[in-house]
């Protein structure tokens, strides 16, 4: 069963470090997304696993077999790694018809003509592009080209499938549609998917595990909801989630047994950790992270705020409120309209407010937040 293991993988382009000592295990049947802003090394990582790029240092194993090792000098070429690769721009061969594109890989496997024909027909049907078999890629729309590319990649039945931002060239509606299809495909083909994206929503909705990277360094590798609810650091918290998390700078110190007293922008708060006790230095600088859905606005609530602007989108409403000098984001279910500058009460809900150390950005604790 294919399991992919990366050990201390580093890639340097000249002096620039694209990927820095990456350790990663991708389990069999996983749908792993490599997520991060552009230039964080996610595509390079994918290309290194596929064999299109050679790491500067480290070791890569696929299915227990070493495919790259800087120590022993092993570097198995991509065609011998038994993987599929879906390119961002599809990389369909412009001089071949849809059928020729799909059958090319099968010809290389020396399949018989009849078998190839059956397989191509089957794929065309699965991906609902049956009527385009004789056309050239330039005669297809973006979504159709995308399907051809998927068919070509699936044709040889690879157990591991790599995808490099395959949906980024599609329009919003088509993208949502293809996401659904990809998720089904993952289950139907029973293979391992490694998927590169910079779209956190895509990572959230598709993957079983998300690998978040920044400047070549792994930030967090966990199921998407864990990443969302318990971000390892400030960067992760800020990158994942839409609308983005509220970040408030302040100072904190231990009071009582476990509780922490926080002062941010003139507001006194008590933070009760639920993830284990923490100890702060006296007046340690911290950053408080509160997801918009935990900011409740209404008539009650000790803290008073003014509505800055309201963005109703039908199903939900994003409300920006001003508390002291801070702008906070709140999400309310349903369409509610507030007047600009209307006064509202604010409360923080739930047990998932996060305290980060300001200096290192590290997640110190999850907990309840109350306003004093």
């Amino acid at each position, binding site marked *: 069963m294919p399991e992919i293991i990366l050990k201390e993988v580093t890639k340097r382009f000249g002096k620039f470090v694209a990927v820095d000592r990456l350790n990663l295990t991708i389990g069999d049947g996983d749908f792993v997304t490599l997520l991060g802003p552009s230039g964080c090394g996610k595509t390079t990582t994918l290309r290194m696993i596929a064999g299109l790029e050679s790491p500067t240092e480290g070791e890569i194993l696929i299915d227990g077999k070493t495919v790259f090792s800087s120590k022993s000098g092993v570097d198995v070429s991509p065609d011998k790694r038994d993987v599929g690769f879906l*390119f961002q721009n599809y990389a369909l061969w412009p001089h071949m018809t849809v059928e020729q594109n799909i059958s090319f890989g099968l010809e290389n496997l020396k399949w018989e003509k009849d078998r190839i024909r059956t397989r191509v027909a089957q794929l065309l049907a699965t991906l609902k592009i049956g009527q385009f078999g004789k056309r050239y890629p330039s005669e297809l729309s973006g979504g159709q080209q995308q399907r051809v590319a998927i068919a070509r990649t699936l044709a040889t039945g690879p157990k591991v499938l790599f995808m490099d931002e395959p949906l980024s060239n599609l329009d919003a509606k088509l993208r949502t549609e293809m996401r659904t299809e990809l998720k089904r495909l993952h289950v139907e083909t029973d293979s391992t998917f490694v998927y590169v994206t910079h779209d956190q929503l895509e990572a959230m909705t598709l993957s079983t595990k998300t690998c978040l990277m920044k400047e070549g360094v792994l930030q967090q590798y966990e199921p998407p909801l864990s990443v969302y609810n318990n971000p390892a650091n400030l960067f992760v918290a800020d990158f994942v989630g839409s609308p983005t998390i509220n970040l408030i700078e302040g100072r904190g110190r231990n009071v009582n047994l476990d509780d922490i007293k926080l002062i941010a922008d003139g507001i006194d708060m008590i933070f009760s950790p639920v993830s284990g006790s923490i100890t702060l230095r006296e007046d340690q600088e911290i950053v408080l992270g509160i997801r918009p859905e935990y900011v409740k606005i209404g008539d009650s609530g000790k803290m008073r705020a003014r509505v800055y602007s309201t963005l109703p989108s039908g199903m939900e409403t994003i409300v920006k409120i001003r508390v002291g000098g801070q702008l906070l984001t709140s999400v309310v279910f349903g369409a509610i309209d507030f007047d600009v500058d209307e006064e509202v009460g604010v409360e923080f809900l739930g047990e998932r407010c996060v305290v980060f150390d300001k200096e290192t950005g590290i997640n110190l604790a999850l907990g309840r937040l109350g306003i004093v």
Partner: protein
Amino acid sequence: MTIGNRAKSFFRKPHNLILVTLAIALSFLTLFPLISLAKDTFIVHPSELMSVRGSHVGDVTLFHWKKVFASGETSMKMFYMPLWNSAKTSLGSCAIAILLGGSVAWLVTRSDIRWKPFISVVFIFPYVMPSWTLAMAWINFFRNRLIGGAPGLFTALTGIETANWFAYGVFPIIVVQGLHYAPFAYILIGGILRNMDANLEEAATILKASRLKILSRITLPIVMPAVLSTFLLVFSSCMSSFAVPAFLGTPVRFQVLTTQLYRTLNGINPGYGYIMALVMIAIGTLILAANQLFVGKRKSFTTVTGKSSNISLVKLRGARLPLSILLVGFAATISILPLVTFAVESFIMAPGDYSFGNLTTQFWIGEGREDIGGGEPGILLNKYIYLGLWNSVKLSLVVSLVAGTIGGLAGYAIVKARGTRLSALVNNLAFFPYLMPSMAFGAIYLSMFGKPTLLLPSLYGTFALLVLVGTVKYLPFASRAGVNAMLQLSNEIEESALIMGIPWWKRMARIIFPIQKTSFLSGYLLPFISCMRELALFVILIVPANRVLTSMLFQYNEKGWNQYANAINLLIVLIVLAFNTIINKATGASIDKGIGG
């Protein structure tokens, strides 16, 4: 709207005004000459009175056509053999240029060969240098005693006498032209390879295709349209090249169409020459038509934009170092060695004797001596050389200024009015001179402006005629550069200025030109360089008063004053290379932008 108002609103747009002016001017300067040339093929010229019995000057006759096409042995010798020779050498040169240029392009863009910056700069030197540079170098190296005169460096160094077929005629012409146009193929094919998405090849790798299969099934089919159009452009350039066959073919009476054209036009039968010029133009037009057939076909190369940045280079592994050294050595040999031979040849007293004692500065700074070269002083003391140099620079500057500016405006107007018939007409008219072989183009202008035409007096022998012919001939380079520059510029950029009420000239000077400075400047650079090294275009229009460096070089060479010719050649090459480098460093404009079509 009344017609008057319609016209007013039409001409209120500057690009329409430019298009109409250019359509009229270019028709006059390209189509009209063509008609006049065709007419000349049916007319008895003064020098032909003897051969066309009982005729008067200006009589209509089919004599020339019969002689050229249907007079058995005469036609064979005069037309069919040279045509066949032209085709033969051009095909051979194409093969060398494409194989060599294509391979180097692949190595530089797709493999991990070393010293790429050096290779990509030095490898295109032969194209920047005048075409005969390599031909002269070949003669310097390999000339033999069989033709008369002293043997070349090769014989002097090794003692081996070179064979005639090796030193002159078909073989060296093919090799030299192939080397000269290899950079051209390198630039065109390299451009496609660079733009071709590397993912296309990687996708095939992942699907377990072998290297060979990827090359034959993916890479080659995709670059094939570019290779074909390179083939056609190189072929037509070779067909119309004059200097190389003139240097390498004439010693063994090997004639091609262009040399034959030169002989007939300068001889007593200009009528024959005009017919040959027409044939050459017809070939050029056919080639362009063929080229356009390949573009825009169903299967043709589609530009799928994507990130092509992460190209993984093919590892040459064991072959990397030897291949790199070989390529660097080769590039240096064809680019730098010729210059060394010119220097050497220009410093020796008695040709063929390369001993130290035979070195002299006579041909550079010596006073004139009765026994050498008709008493001419060294070229740095020769006021005629300075006059020629001044003429060359003056001509190139004026031509580049006029052609560059008109080409830039043409590009602006063509792109602005894209899709209209007028725009397509001007685009084609501005490109048409590219198809006309330089020699034929010169012939046309000689035929047309040699006598008073319409409002113009006879321009024969004037500087203005040289400027005119140079401007029209090099307009394609400039207009291509202009069109390319404008295509990359979104229309909104000008429109946002238009809305603010900024006048047209200010929009051009302050917004459009500065943004696309390098592309537009390439449109000035190409005509300048081409003009500095041009021979075929001017050679039949030049009179002693307006000699340019290249025509003087040609004359010295014809007289067999080898050292002077080499010295002048070195001078031209150095000026051209210096100019190219300065402009390139200062502005980023370069000769490889805007080439092709």
